């Protein structure tokens, strides 16, 4: 019924991407070039992540696809639909049930396990891009572990805004060797990359790069000695739907007069908490 090969790509193409992935895993944080393919969705809409997904997904996998924390955004839905059409695998919104999570701009709130793989979509993989436009020279700087340019960008943000103003995509040092762009996840998510039990794969379709963090890799957010790294403050904020505290919340403004309200950015996490809460409210035991 399906005129395409399993997972859209022919086996040769998948093998090529897997080879790049293996190299990426072997050199944590190092950007491996790969032959990014034309996809039925436009570049810049997660084709890098999608290609990684298609190269590794197997028949028994259960996938979750999120876009900025949401399982329901148009982008997440269409990517998920496409993967399902091309593979027939099961889908889920619950992080703990998924074997592969493809995500744009968030790391799920539920801690990932060693059984899971997280795929992050990357628009700009090169942390040196702002200070070094030439790809060849940037590559040489990585080889020589010369990251003054990244530090200069951070310094300049402090001069301009009084603090490092990386709303997202705050550069990280991987395994004390390569400086890596973590993709535009909030700074709040950076610490989840450190020492993470799951394998994390990064795919940049437009820029034709793949990189990876094998499980339990040391990932440090860059910071000057007198300007410690701080993530977005969630202090004193509570999700109005599930009551969660200390997770990454979206702020919305209500009608005039009332203050802002907050909701979990990770909708799957929020929904799961809501349903277990209502079960508890109905007197059922949780965890059944």
């Amino acid at each position, binding site marked *: 019924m399906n005129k395409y090969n399993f997972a859209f790509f022919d086996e040769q193409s998948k093998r090529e991407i897997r080879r790049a992935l293996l190299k990426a895993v072997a050199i944590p944080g190092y950007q491996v070039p790969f032959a990014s393919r034309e996809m039925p969705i436009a570049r810049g809409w997660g084709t890098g992540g999608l290609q990684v997904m298609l190269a590794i997904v197997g028949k028994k996998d259960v996938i979750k696809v999120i876009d900025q924390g949401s399982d329901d955004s148009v982008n997440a839905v269409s990517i998920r639909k496409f993967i399902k059409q091309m593979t027939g695998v099961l889908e889920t919104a619950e992080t703990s049930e998924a074997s592969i999570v493809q995500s744009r701009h968030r790391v799920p709130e539920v801690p990932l396990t060693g059984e899971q793989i997280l795929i992050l979509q990357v628009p700009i993989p090169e942390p040196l891009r702002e200070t070094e436009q030439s790809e060849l020279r940037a590559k040489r700087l990585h080889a020589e572990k*010369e990251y003054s340019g990244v530090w*200069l960008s951070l*310094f*300049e943000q402090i*001069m301009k805004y009084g603090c490092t103003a990386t709303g997202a995509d705050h550069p990280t040092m991987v395994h004390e060797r390569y400086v890596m762009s973590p993709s535009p996840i909030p700074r709040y998510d950076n610490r989840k990359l450190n020492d993470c039990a799951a394998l994390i794969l990064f795919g940049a379709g437009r820029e034709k790069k793949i990189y990876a963090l094998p499980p339990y890799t040391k990932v440090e957010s860059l910071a000057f000695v*007198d300007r410690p790294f701080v993530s977005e403050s969630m202090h004193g904020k509570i999700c109005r739907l599930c009551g969660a505290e200390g997770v990454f919340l979206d702020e919305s403004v209500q009608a005039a007069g009332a203050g802002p309200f907050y909701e979990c950015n990770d909708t799957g996490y929020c929904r799961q908490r809501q349903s277990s809460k209502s079960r508890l409210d109905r007197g059922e035991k949780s965890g059944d």
Partner: protein
Amino acid sequence: METNEGAVLSLQNFRKQFGSGCEKCADLDERHLQRNYCPNCRTTYACADLSLDLYGGEILGVVGESGSGKSTLLRCLYFDEEASSGEAFLQGYKSGQVNIFTETGQQKRYIRNYHLGMVYQNPYMGLRMSFSSIGNIAEKLIAAGGRSVDAMTGRAASLLHKVDIPPYRFLETPATFSGGMQQRVQIAKALSNNPPILLLDEITTGLDLSVQAKVLDLIKGIQRELRISMLVVSHDLAVIRMLAERTIVMLDGKIVEQGLTDQVLEDPQHPYTQKLVQSLL
């Protein structure tokens, strides 16, 4: 070979060629060259086996017409370009025992960050025009391992103050500055890591006369105060006369005359220098 006694920089048989050379021109036989160019293989010998010494605390002038190889000399010493052959030794680097031209890329970056400062003729070469002035100076401090924001802003501010940039402009980008101010920011940047050697390439060319005088005064002041050795390149004998104690005259990639600046100017030996001096009078 190693540095000659008292020399902070010793350059020996330094060659920079653009092109592969051929059997006719490889030994720089003048019969086969048109000035610095081999018409047979289209190779340019921008610097044709130069040797020179720069001594502690001195300003050495390098003068010569456009195309004589002055900028190429500085660019190779600063590793912007790779030397084709020859040797260079720095007294402060590995006791002057190691040819810096053949060091690794990482070592060259280290030398650049700790031992050298460069001021380019065109400030666009030496500055990031869309970064703050203070950030431009921090760049060199960061490259030398600086990781404290407060220490670096403090150092940058005191250097910008030294070169007379008003504090309210520290956070502005050099793109909004006049040419003279841009040169002064470059000078502050070059000084940031207290390098023992400063390389200055036509730093007043293109500036108004009054602005030129201010920049030259600044250089003189820095040299007197910090005793930094400087290699000052200019096609303008007036600049050389004002700054340099000793002078080298270059023509077609070669040194045609050298000596105390006064001597060279009073009593030029080489016909080319004589012509240069006459045009100045």
